[in-house]
């Protein structure tokens, strides 16, 4: 199956059409894993500077739980799912079917649960886009990290902004109806023409 992967400049028009679909798919995946009614409350596809990008998942010194994965294939980039620590604990309880309040630290199993939530969200986002555009987008295994939002974003931004001063970010906030659970999902595409329909 030949795929003509031309790493071209960021294809905004195509990405904005697909990002919405991918976003809803990602959030539905999380909703399935934790058995909650989750909906996208805000969706943005915007051009950001490096300095502003460090606040995309929270204020630079906000303590957050980040689940990160990178993707490669017809396009490449970064995906980050972020929650405040108390929300992350609740999600672990929900995914594992434990009574609320059971989880209060993130050990290996808890991180694995969160990693899997990130894997599902990222994969669903990529699947929705890839199938419509006739591409292949492969996610890496997830990484779970707990630290300041600015610190977590740093090395990603170093890659994204290595040769440019502005970049496109797909950012959504999603929540349960009561906003008891609220999180952020961020996609930073790096390069690649996502609309590569293979011929034959």
């Amino acid at each position, binding site marked *: 199956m030949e795929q003509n992967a031309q790493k071209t400049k960021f294809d905004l028009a195509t990405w904005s059409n697909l990002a919405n679909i991918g976003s809803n798919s990602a959030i539905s995946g999380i909703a399935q894993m934790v058995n909650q009614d989750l909906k996208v409350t805000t969706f943005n596809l915007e051009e950001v500077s490096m300095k502003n990008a460090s606040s995309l998942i929270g204020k630079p*010194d906000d303590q957050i739980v980040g689940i990160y994965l990178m993707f490669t294939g017809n396009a490449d980039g970064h995906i980050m799912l972020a929650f405040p620590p108390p929300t992350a604990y609740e999600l672990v309880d929900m995914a594992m079917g434990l009574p609320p309040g059971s989880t209060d630290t993130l050990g290996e199993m808890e991180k694995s649960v969160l990693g899997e939530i990130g894997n599902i969200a990222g994969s669903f986002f990529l699947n929705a886009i890839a199938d419509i555009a006739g591409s292949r987008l492969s996610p890496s295994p997830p990484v779970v990290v707990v*630290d300041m939002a600015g610190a977590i974003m740093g090395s990603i931004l170093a*890659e994204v902004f290595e040769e440019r001063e502005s970049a496109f970010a797909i950012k959504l906030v999603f929540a349960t109806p009561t906003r008891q659970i609220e999180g952020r999902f961020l996609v930073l595409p790096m390069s690649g023409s996502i609309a590569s329909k293979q011929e034959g």
Partner: protein
Amino acid sequence: MSTTVETIVIGLGEWAVRKNDSAALTCVGLGSCIALCAYDPVSKVGGMAHMVLPSNESGTKIASAKYVDTGIPMLLEEMKKKGALISRTVVKIAGGAQMLSVPGLNGRLNVADRNIAATKTALAQAGVSATGTEVGGNSGRTVQLFLDTGRVTVRATGKETCEL
């Protein structure tokens, strides 16, 4: 510690040099980035740069604090212009933490170590050595340079604030 000290946040790729100031230059949430703090206690000139990448590989000549190789000479030059003597200037560095390691992909997102190496090289080229270093590891840091005294503090995630 006085709570009325003005905090000036130095964001990614930014830098500042002040003379006879009483504010605290601050880098918040340093991951792989390097914060360079420089202070001449005699002339009371102090500066901070928040550097993101080791060098500019794109070929376009941009003098910027985003890159360690241009940021450090630029900061020291500005310090001199404002009356600092480099021989008296105290330099401290913090940051360069490896925050994300993707299983199976060891070569990616490794800018932290490259930033530390580039910083040491640039300082050596400028004939300056850092008297305080808090680099490496896997934790985020917030760094402050108090311009009235030159005091530098570092707070790493999960640890108490300490003086560098």
